[in-house]
C-alpha cells in the first residue's frame, strides 16, 4: 500500500478542459489543432500527433497564413488530434488569455501555445511576437503576471508584453543621459547598471509585467540580431565580433 501523496489523480476525463491543472501547468482539451512551442508538452492522453510547422503546412495551406514570419516556424510544432494535452514550462506560472479580434505582443520565449484562429507576427521590438485575431493562447511568467495601464515605464527584463497600446519607445534616465553626454558617448558601454534603459509606454491599453526574468536562449532573437548586422560595414562588423568574443569569454 502506498500513501502520503495527497494530490488529485487525474485521468483523460477528469483533467481540466482548457484550464490550469495547477499554477504551473495547463491542460488543453485538444480536438483539432493547436500550435505549441517545442518542448512545452509535458504529458498527454489520446491520439495526438506533433509535426513540424513546415511539414504540416505542406498538407494544410492555412498554416502558412498563421505564421507571417518564417523566423519562428522552427520553434513551433502543430499538435493535432484528440485528447488532453498538458503544457508546462520549467516550473513557471502559466496563464491563458483570450483574444477577441484583438492584438497582443508578448515575449517570444514566454509564449507556449496558441489556437489556430490567431496569427503570429514578428514584432518590431526584437524578441517579441504579436498575436492577432480571435482565440486562446498560453503564456508563462516568472511569478504572477502584473497588469498596469500606461503611461508607464517598464524595465525591459521584467516586460512580458502589452496589448492594444502603441509599441514602446526607449527611455533613458535623465541624470544618466546628462552624464553620458558630458563624458562622451564611448562611455556608454560599461556604465550600464541595467536600470537606465527603460521602455516607455503611452496611449491606451494594458502592459503585462512579470516579477523577475531569467535570460533565456532564444534562437529566433539570435537570427533577428544576426540579420540586422547586415547593415554594418565590414570594419564595424569586425569590431562587433571582437566585442562579442570578449563578452563570451567573460561569461
Amino acid at each position: 500500500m502506498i500513501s502520503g501523496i495527497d494530490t488529485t489523480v487525474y485521468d483523460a476525463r477528469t483533467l481540466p478542459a482548457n484550464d490550469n491543472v495547477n499554477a504551473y501547468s495547463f491542460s488543453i482539451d485538444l480536438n483539432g489543432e493547436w500550435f505549441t512551442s517545442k518542448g512545452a508538452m509535458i504529458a498527454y492522453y489520446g491520439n495526438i500527433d506533433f509535426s513540424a510547422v513546415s511539414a504540416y503546412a505542406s498538407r494544410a495551406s492555412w498554416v502558412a497564413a498563421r505564421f507571417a514570419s518564417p523566423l519562428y516556424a522552427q520553434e513551433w510544432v502543430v499538435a493535432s488530434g484528440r485528447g488532453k494535452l498538458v503544457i508546462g514550462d520549467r516550473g513557471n506560472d502559466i496563464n491563458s488569455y483570450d483574444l477577441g479580434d484583438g492584438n497582443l505582443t508578448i515575449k517570444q520565449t514566454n509564449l507556449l501555445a496558441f489556437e489556430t484562429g490567431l496569427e503570429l507576427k514578428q514584432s518590431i521590438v526584437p524578441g517579441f511576437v504579436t498575436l492577432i485575431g480571435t482565440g486562446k493562447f498560453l503564456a508563462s511568467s516568472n511569478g504572477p503576471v502584473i497588469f498596469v495601464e500606461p503611461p508607464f515605464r517598464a524595465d525591459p527584463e521584467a516586460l512580458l508584453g502589452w496589448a492594444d497600446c502603441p509599441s514602446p519607445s526607449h527611455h533613458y534616465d535623465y541624470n544618466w543621459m546628462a552624464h553620458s553626454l558630458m563624458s562622451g558617448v564611448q562611455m556608454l558601454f560599461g556604465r550600464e547598471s541595467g536600470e537606465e534603459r527603460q521602455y516607455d509606454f503611452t496611449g491606451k491599453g494594458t502592459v503585462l509585467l512579470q516579477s523577475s526574468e531569467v535570460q533565456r536562449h532564444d534562437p529566433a532573437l539570435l537570427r533577428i540580431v544576426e540579420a540586422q548586422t547586415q547593415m554594418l560595414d565590414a570594419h564595424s562588423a569586425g569590431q562587433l565580433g571582437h566585442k562579442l568574443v570578449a563578452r563570451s569569454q567573460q561569461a
Partner: protein
Amino acid sequence: MAVLTADKRVLHADLQGDSVRAASGSMVAYTGKVEFKSAGMGGGGGFRAALKQRVAGESISLMTCSGAGRVYLAQDAMDVTVVQLQNDRLTVESDHILAVTDGLQLDVQFAGLRGMTSGQGLATTTVTGTGQVAIMSEGPLIALAVTPGEPLVVDPDVYVAGTGQTQMSLVSGVSWRSVIGEDGGEPFSLRFEGNGTVYIQPAER
C-alpha cells in the same frame, strides 16, 4: 523508528538512535547528536546493482545519518513529499530521492539499451518494502492515472515517480526530429500502459 515529515521544501528526519539514508549533501541543519557518513553508490544492492548503475549511467549518491536528533534535509528548493510504503513498490527517478528510512530497499531498474541516447528515465530506482521515502519535485506533483486502454505519454524530463503495474516504453512518436535543421523538443517520450499512477512535475529537468 525514524520519522520523516515534509515541511514544504524541507524534510524533517527525526532520529531515535537509528538511521536514515539521505541524498549526499542535502543536510542543511541538524540538532542533537547525529553522525553522517557516505553510504556509497545506491546504498545497497551489492555489486550487481553497482554494475547496472554503471551501465545505465545512473548514480545515486547517499549518506547515512545516524544518531538521535532532528536532521533538516533540502535540495535546490524543491518541493518535498513523504510517501509511506506498506510492503509495496514505488518507482522514482533517482535524482528525486531525498531520503529513505531503513526497511526499504533501493534497486536500479534498467529499461534497456535503446534508452541510452535519451539519458533520462531509462534507469529509475525502485523502492520496495515497508517504510518512508521522501521524494522531491520542482513544483507540486501532478498525478496522472494509467488505466487499461488509456495509455499516457509523458516527457522523460518531467517524470518523477510511478506506482502500480505499468509498462514503460520509449516512443519516438515525435516526427519533427527527422526534419533536417529542426531539432530540439522531445526526441523521445515515455509511454505508460497498464494500471497505475504516474507522477510528474511541471518543470523540465
